[in-house]
């Protein structure tokens, strides 16, 4: 589903290279965890997948379902099925969350040549998804993410992810700032989305989240490259021994 080949990318403004020859393949139905110490390029990778202009790809390729996405803008990538759950979701003052959901869902439907959702159908979907995530309707009337607590923001991200039904879900440090109850709710939300035709990339610093969202593969990112891949036991190993050992091994 996702193939990243020898990817090199730098900060567009100043030219600092962040991703240095990264290779990664994630198959449909797979949950891949990307772990790494601070500053290894984890968040950058998520931004590049989503098409943020601040980064410039200088070499390599990103294929999504066999097609290059490098020339697509963020909205086109989203409509093609890539969803990024942000580490720090942005506040959009004055735009009610519900309104935003409607606009986003219908924009994607339009891009796929589908009819816009009728309001009752939209509401039905939103209600179902919100219930499971413990989001009440009052929260959806508030402007998107404005004044939301850390947990509310993360739950709103997962709600969007469920409603937009992406093919590839990228979760950037979704566990940061969550207490154990919220972590459980969010993880259940992600697990509910696991399916044979959908891939999930979980970016995290800690193994904690992976106890709830159990990965099929674990990849260690360091200095812009995957330096080790394995199964979920690799995450346990990291938890016990830290990154130092693996980094030393790779060096």
């Amino acid at each position, binding site marked *: 589903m996702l193939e990243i080949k020898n990817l090199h990318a730098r900060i567009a403004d100043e030219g600092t290279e962040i991703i240095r020859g990264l290779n990664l393949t994630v198959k449909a139905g797979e949950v891949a965890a990307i772990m790494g110490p601070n500053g290894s390029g984890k968040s950058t990778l998520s931004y590049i997948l989503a098409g943020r202009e601040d980064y410039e790809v200088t070499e390599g390729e990103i294929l999504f379902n066999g097609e290059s996405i490098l020339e697509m803008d963020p909205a086109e990538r989203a409509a093609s099925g890539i969803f990024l759950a942000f580490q720090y979701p*942005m506040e959009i003052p004055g735009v009610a969350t519900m309104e935003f959901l409607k606009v986003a869902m219908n*924009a994607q439907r339009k891009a796929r040549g589908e009819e816009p959702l009728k309001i009752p159908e939209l509401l039905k979907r939103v209600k179902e998804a919100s219930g499971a995530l413990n989001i009440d*309707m009052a929260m959806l009337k508030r402007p998107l993410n404005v004044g939301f607590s850390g947990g509310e923001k993360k739950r709103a991200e997962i709600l969007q992810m469920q409603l937009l039904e992406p093919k590839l879900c990228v979760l950037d440090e979704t566990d940061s700032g969550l207490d154990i109850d919220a972590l459980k709710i969010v993880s259940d939300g992600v697990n509910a989305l696991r399916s044979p035709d959908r891939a999930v990339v979980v970016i995290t610093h800690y193994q904690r989240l992976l106890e709830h969202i159990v990965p099929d593969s674990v990849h260690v990112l360091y200095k812009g490259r995957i330096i080790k891949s394995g199964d979920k036991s690799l995450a346990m190993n990291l938890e016990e021994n830290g990154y130092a050992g693996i980094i030393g091994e790779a060096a």
Partner: protein
Amino acid sequence: MPAVQETIDQVRLIDVDQYKYGFETSIEMDKAPKGLNEDIIRFISAKKDEPQWMLDWRLDAFERWKTQEEPDWARVDYPKIDFQDIYYYAAPKSTPGPTSLAEVDPELLRTYEKLGIPLREQEILAGVKKPGHEESEDGVLADSESQSANGGRRVAVDAVFDSVSVVTTFKKELAKAGVIFCSISEAIREYPDLVKKYLGSVVPQSDNYYATLNSAVFTDGSFVFVPKGVRCPMELSTYFRINEKNTGQFERTLIIAEEGAYVSYLEGCTAPQRDENQLHAAVVELVALDDAEIKYSTVQNWYPGDSQGKGGIYNFVTKRGDCRGDRSKISWTQVETGSAITWKYPSCILRGDDSRGEFYSIAVSNGYQQIDSGTKMLHLGKNTSSRIISKGIAAGFSQNTYRGQVSAHRKATNARNFTQCDSLLIGDQCGAHTVPYIEAKNATTQFEHEATTSKISDDQKFYVMQRGIPEEEAIALIVNGFVKDVIQELPMEFAVEAQKLIGISLEGSVG
């Protein structure tokens, strides 16, 4: 109502250079020769069958106008206007004062249909279907949509085509409530005492250059009188349309709310697309007596000129409300997306004790538009309060200035003002300016003013686009969030349309 929905649909289809209202209606017109002199004024007055006092007032204004100078303090720049190269009177020929819809030229009615104005009373009465009719039972969608749950609100309409009012609807029903809603020409003939008492009492005959010109040559406009204790049973609305070439439009509107009365008035404006500039110099006067409230909303969408800055309306307007009575309230809400140049400061004179003034404004400029707009809140009475929320959005090569004055007179104890003035820049070829004048002459004054200027953050735009919303829509969405505080002050009839208009006005501003 269906007309608004239709408008929205039309609006979706066009891009920035295709000004939606840029069609021209071919109607036989009755025109006075170009130019301005006493004879033209006499001609206008005679056409309107005016009494001598009105003609004298006009001629007096004209004398004063000749001694005045065009103001140059606003941050706008345009070639000198040749006031002799303008038609001061143009009226559709077949409508020498229609008394019912049946008498109105069908071509004219079609024009208004195109504009999305619901003239036909039966249509309005049948207006159950509202925009956003797919209302949810939870009412959790945007406010603008949930408001429509209130059911079919009715709007009485006065339509002004070039120089004359062509039709006013709902007159009979309003009359039952004691409300007078008619063209100002009719009011001068039918209610001379009311007109004499209030005309020029808020904006004096020779208040400023354009207002004086208006006093001399105004051709039509609306007149509203809501008697003591009456809450006007429906929204009142006027649509202004400049159709003829080289025609100035000089409408004069006078609204009086007696003790305890309430009225909400909406004003919409359009003009066809033309290469030359056209002048619009209106005067609006509002008078609120004790405990009265007037809510005045405008969606101004005059032709802004093309993407190269050619053509467009010069919108030089004097609007002022007088909170003459104690506990009276006047609220201005404006959405300014059109006109090549806007020079406009809807103001409140807070004369009555405990009176309140409000100004909510969205000013969007794109292309080569220039806007210098804002308000004046003059606190004269005791315990008066005012609130100003201004949202300016500049794109393209436009210049967008907020200019506002808040002053507390020496005797205005406990005057309160809150001003929030935010500007958004889209692109680095435009300018956003904030020029407030804050004047306190009383120790008990509490004035708070805040202004910010910023751009749409890349982070916000990226976030919204990541959800699959294309760039232009993403910007429109964020901008609509930015102006939300003002949009929600608009009556439902205008709110949805205003949001769409803002989106359209900004089209072509990214890339």
